[in-house]
């Protein structure tokens, strides 16, 4: 058994202890503490929890056996068994100071006097800088009392999750506590900081259509899988979960009975809490009633396809298209690459990507969508009853973004925020409206253009003016006016526009 017990019990003994410490320092200098990570220190401390308080000692096992017991009032207390520790023996063993030593080998190299007033293998750090596996120590001015704990983390109040050999009645415990300012923070020498895990954590909630803006409905019991790392269950009642992971990027998928699975990819930064909450949409019953084509408006499930040469209206009926052979192969939404006609409209909570498929929004995105309608001058209130205007140019905060499709429909993926929307169409006076949208949310915005002059235009023109077969109608138009022409040009313009909108969204997020 190695026993290097320094236990000053008064000024004289403290002085003697200092002299002894000098000798110890000479010995310890030959056997410096091993390089350790903070996690390795805590791992050693965890094994000690449940063992008895043993004044002047420090040893425990890793199998939780032979806990021992303590009775009475220390130092005049009675200990039974071969394992246990007092507070300084516990910290010294977890820290492995002055040198590497087995947990089961009894040792007590330092008292709280040494920890408080010396800096043999440790140094003082600021309270606010304390990290996992640092210690807090106090020693009273009469030199008759002292205590030391290992810091693990904080809680919402700023209380400390601590490992400590608390006292005879308690033994070695893990608990939340608060400390007075008489304590000082210490950090062991020779810590290796690489790579410290970060916490990837979050809650699972029902997405009520506004993303993280409303996380009030939690889903405890949901399964949470971190790809390649493991699975856990969202806790009760908050639906909370967490993984401790090395720094990096991780994809987390959540699933719960009655809900559609949802995923997010989040970054884990070392030593930090990295939030990655996931909203799940309630499973829905597709509603194709009255529809023969397109996607059902509830779940986005296909309701059928139209015959060659027909186009699917937003209402889900097939309509004869003249002059162009529509090709919606592999597409659920957006413009077809041949005619530029719409292949369908996504349900509000999804957006149409460049490949023509409906896709879930990321937590940073939001969707604004709607129709351009022809309204009489001065019309206010609900504009949804007015006829739609195809081929209208929709601008976002003054920047032309895209044209409304054959059915007057348009959609944009944007950063959350408030926007000024404007529509221009040949034969109409331009109109504007304001819309705002939250993260992962969606907002329908009806943009009017106004009938002008004494000859109001045909409220429901079969084709927009100046656009023959093959003209871009439902695709993006990054510049003013329409783009006509070849398939390659259409695809190029569509892709450029999509990239522009995404880049703009990122730019807004970074502000």
């Amino acid at each position: 058994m190695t026993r290097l017990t320094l236990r000053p019990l008064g000024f004289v003994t403290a002085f003697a202890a200092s002299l002894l410490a000098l000798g110890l320092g000479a010995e310890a200098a030959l056997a410096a503490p091993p390089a350790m990570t903070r996690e390795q220190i805590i791992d050693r401390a965890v094994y000690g929890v449940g063992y008895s308080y043993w004044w002047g000692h420090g040893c425990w096992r890793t199998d939780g056996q032979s806990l021992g017991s303590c009775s009475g009032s220390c130092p005049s207390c009675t200990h039974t068994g071969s394992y246990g520790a007092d507070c300084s023996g516990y910290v010294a063993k977890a820290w492995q100071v002055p040198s590497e030593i087995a947990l089961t080998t009894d040792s007590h190299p330092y008292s709280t006097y040494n920890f408080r007033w010396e800096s043999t293998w440790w140094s003082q750090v600021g309270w606010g800088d304390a990290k996992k596996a640092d210690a807090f120590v106090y020693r009273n001015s009469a030199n008759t009392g002292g205590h030391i704990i290992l810091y693990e983390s904080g809680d919402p109040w700023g209380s400390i999750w601590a490992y400590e050999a608390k006292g005879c009645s308690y033994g070695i415990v893990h608990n939340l506590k608060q400390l007075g300012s008489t304590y000082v923070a210490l950090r062991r020498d020779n810590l290796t900081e690489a790579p410290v895990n970060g916490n990837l954590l979050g809650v699972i909630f029902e997405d009520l259509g506004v993303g993280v803006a409303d996380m009030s409905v939690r889903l405890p019991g949901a399964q949470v899988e971190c790809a390649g790392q493991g699975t856990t269950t969202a806790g009760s009642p908050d639906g909370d979960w967490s993984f401790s992971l090395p720094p990096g990027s991780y994809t987390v998928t959540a699933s719960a009975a009655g809900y559609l699975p949802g995923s997010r990819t989040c970054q884990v930064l070392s030593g930090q809490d990295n939030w990655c909450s996931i909203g799940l949409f309630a499973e829905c019953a597709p509603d194709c009633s009255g529809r023969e084509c397109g996607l059902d408006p509830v779940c986005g499930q296909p309701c059928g396809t139209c015959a060659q040469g027909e186009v699917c209206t937003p209402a889900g009926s097939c309509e004869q298209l003249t002059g162009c052979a529509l090709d919606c192969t592999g597409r659920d939404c957006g413009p077809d690459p041949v005619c530029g006609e719409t292949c369908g409209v996504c349900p509000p909570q999804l957006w149409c990507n460049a490949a023509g498929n409906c896709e879930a929004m990321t937590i940073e995105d939001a969707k604004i969508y709607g129709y351009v309608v022809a309204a009489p001058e001065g019309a206010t209130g609900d504009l949804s009853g007015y006829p739609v205007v195809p081929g209208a140019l929709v601008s976002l905060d003054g920047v032309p973004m895209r044209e409304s499709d054959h059915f007057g429909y348009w959609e944009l993926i944007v950063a959350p925020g408030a926007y000024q929307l404007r529509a221009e169409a040949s034969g109409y006076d331009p109109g504007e409206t304001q819309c705002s949208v939250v993260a992962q949310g969606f907002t329908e915005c009806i943009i009017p253009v106004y009938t002008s002059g004494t000859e109001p235009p045909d409220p429901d023109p079969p084709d927009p003016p100046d656009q023959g077969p093959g003209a871009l109608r439902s695709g993006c138009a990054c510049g003013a006016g329409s783009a006509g022409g070849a398939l390659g040009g259409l695809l190029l313009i569509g892709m450029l526009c999509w990239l522009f909108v995404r880049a703009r969204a990122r730019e807004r997020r970074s502000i």
Partner: protein
Amino acid sequence: MRAYLTKSLLLLGAVAVAAGAAAALGSDGLGRGGGEPVAAALPDGDAPLQGVRGTTGSPGTSRAIPALQGASRPAGKVGQVGQAGQTWQAGLAGRTGPGGQAGQAGHSASAVYARGAIALSPPSPAAAPRRELVFRLRWGSGPEELGYRTPEEAAPEGPMSFALGPSGSIWVLDQVNFRVQVVEQGRVARSVPLPNDSYQDIAVDGRGRLAVLDRLALRHVAWLEGAGQAWRFAGIEGPGMPEGGGATALFLETDGAWLEWSHQHLVRVTDARGLPDLARPQRWGRMTPDGQRLVRAARAGSHGAILLARDSRAARAGVEVLARPSFGRPLTYLTALCTGGAGRVLLGAHLIEHGSAAPFPVIAEEAWALVLGPVGQEEHRVKLPVSQSPATPFQGIRMAPDGAIYHLLYEDRGASLWRVRP
């Protein structure tokens, strides 16, 4: 635009803080962080407490934040800017109470206006909060004493908690001496023996039922139905309470004993008779006396806290931000969250400011109790004396239904309990 408005409001707030700082410091005349000399300088009788009402100096400002859901937000106004030499009350208000005013009797402050407004008004001429000594008992193990120990190589501890009992009695958890000391009229009227010396929290109710929490050694709630009855025990670890060391508060309610986990949710561990509750229902936060709301608090940033509330009756109720009080020094930890009559909430805060270089000396240490009204408006901000003991009580602050604040203080030779009537 939104950012501009926010900056403008912050700037106005900063001006208000600066305007109030000199007056506040002048009136306090504080030394090291305002730390009042403990024990020796405290009179046994009434003594004015160094308290301020929402003062904008050292303690900082309190900002009531608009509720996320269902808030009433009538148009507001900006109060007049004060004159030099006056102490001002400032608040960045969010939600209005009835009539758009603070709505508390005897309190003339007009800190609460509609969303986003900064309201400045002179403080009420009413008297400063008064502190009264409820009792002072010496350290020891005698009949009129309380146990205190600072062992060598173990945690120091004094009376870990106290509870406000019926008829003005104070039940002090004297666990070091294996007992509860029941104090009436400033004297120990009787003692209740405890099964162990490792209890850390206590709760009593109007019927004289007593519950004590041992979260570390025995990890149970011990329940005493009344004098002459036998103790009943219920284990605390299980669903909602994965380890006893994470218990942060004990509440005794008509349906049983509830424990709080890590200052977050609560779980019921006994039924109304003190027997283990196998169902272990959970709730989101601490309940207000009227049963209407649940509340939680947390540190927010280095100098502030956030107070959250939720409707207790709606399963899908949203969480609203009730207030965001801030302080002039680093908020090291919160010490109390109490709910009282008239929808009041008490928030305790402990502030420690250290030097920035080794040996990181303590520059200032302060303890504060904030009383917030039903919509989060700050009614009072009371400075409490700071103990220099290395021991820290598990629960050192309570609030009575009438709003009086009780504060347990460890002194050199004993413990004292103070009542503050804001």
